[in-house]
């Protein structure tokens, strides 16, 4: 075991994700400023904030889709470095769902769900398919297994993408605006799937502007602006009694 792979000394089994003092630049543009966030195991954190505030960048740093330049990110006791083994291990624990689904268009829903288990974990085809069908059942599209993504509605595609992630048995799920590419009437079914996942105890970090979902599911709401975490609070408090003026301004915009 190399130094890079060594579990962080301060590893706390209760903590799923910890960002401390994280800075991130895109060339000369600094998009994250001293971001500190701790997500406990089983916790559901909703991240909101204006466009361009760095929400996507922050959660993409958690599974190293983006590389941070300063600070520490520890996921399940493993500190993220640019060592590929470390990255691979963290990504085994972290699933991600994207705004645009990012399903593989040339593979059926079932193939989308079995590709990574078979090739990353070496699961036998039959077992991978059985697992995939179980998760497709759980997101309530068991009959779509043999369809191609383009033959599904947006809501069904996003639920397929959630199933695909779950097939890797992640301990933490990241969602980056999973419903904002959907027609309004399809948002509900995806949020219901996510709420069900939350009640099953999944650790979730979710960028969304669905404030009803935040109220119903979140343990904490994080508000970001201009690359900084401005405010963190439980949902009742966050919505009823926001402390910061920028939070108030943002809430008054999106709640009306």
């Amino acid at each position, binding site marked *: 075991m190399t130094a890079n792979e060594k579990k962080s000394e301060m590893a706390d089994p209760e903590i799923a994700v910890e960002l401390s003092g994280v800075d991130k630049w895109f060339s000369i543009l600094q998009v994250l400023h001293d971001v500190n966030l701790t997500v406990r195991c089983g916790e559901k954190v909703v991240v909101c904030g204006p466009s361009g505030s760095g929400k996507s960048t922050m959660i993409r740093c958690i599974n190293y889709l983006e590389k941070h330049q300063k600070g520490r990110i520890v996921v399940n006791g493993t500190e993220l470095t640019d060592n590929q083994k470390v990255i691979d291990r963290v990504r085994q624990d972290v699933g991600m769902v994207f705004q645009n689904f990012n399903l*593989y*268009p040339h593979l059926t829903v079932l193939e989308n769900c079995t*590709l990574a288990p078979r*090739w*990353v974990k070496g699961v036998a085809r039959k077992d991978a398919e059985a697992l995939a069908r179980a998760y497709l059942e759980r997101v309530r599209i068991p009959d779509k297994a043999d369809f191609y*993504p383009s033959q599904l509605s947006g809501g069904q595609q996003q639920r397929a993408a959630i199933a*695909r992630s779950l097939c*890797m048995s992640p301990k933490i799920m990241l969602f980056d605006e999973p419903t904002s590419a959907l027609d309004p009437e399809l948002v509900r079914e995806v949020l219901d799937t996510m709420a069900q996942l939350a009640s099953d105890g999944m650790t979730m970090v979710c960028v969304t502007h669905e404030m009803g979902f935040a109220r119903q599911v979140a343990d904490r709401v994080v508000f970001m602006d201009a690359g900084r975490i401005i405010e963190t609070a439980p949902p009742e408090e966050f919505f009823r009694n926001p402390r910061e003026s920028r939070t108030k301004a943002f809430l008054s915009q999106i709640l009306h």
Partner: protein
Amino acid sequence: MDFAYILEALPDLMTGLKTTLIVSFLAIFLSCLIGLVGAVLRKSGIKPLQYAVTAYVEFIRGTPYLVQIFFIFYGLPSLGLRFSIFWSGVIALTAWASAFQIENFRAGLAAVGSGMHDASASLGLKRWQHSIFIILPLATRAALPSAMNTIVATVKNSAYLQAIGLVELTFVAVDRIAYDFRAIEMFASICVIYLICVFTISGLGYMVERRLSRPFGGR
């Protein structure tokens, strides 16, 4: 039009056609391979390789094809590189077609959105797995229509190789005309033969395209 004469010339024409097809298929196969590799190198992030590939593409696109053929057949021997007429022809045709296939595959690769990379990375797929299972099929499918155009052009451009004495279809026709002066019979015949080849290839390409697009939710 003297059809009896065409019939008499047919065995000769078929011999020429055979060479045309062999040279074309070699060039098509090699240029698709080089096109794929070149397109990947162009996106590799290795600067010297990227410049080399770009320079190559610009050179081929910016100079007359006939000059490239002469360069390979008459120019390279003085640099100590001597090839037979046949292989000079294959090299010239491949060199020309590769430049265009590189461009076609480059466009194909560019058509694969960054979302695919995000998905594969977050699922933990290795780079090579992502390249083979995701990028290759999606890029090929996006590149196919323009790659088919280049493939058809490759067959047609094999005719230029008569200029260095390769006995392919056009050479046979021109050669016979020099003795028999039946220009209309010969040129009409080889036009029909080329058309048959091109339609066959386009038809095959269309079938492949239909097959590949079916998984994308086409009916």
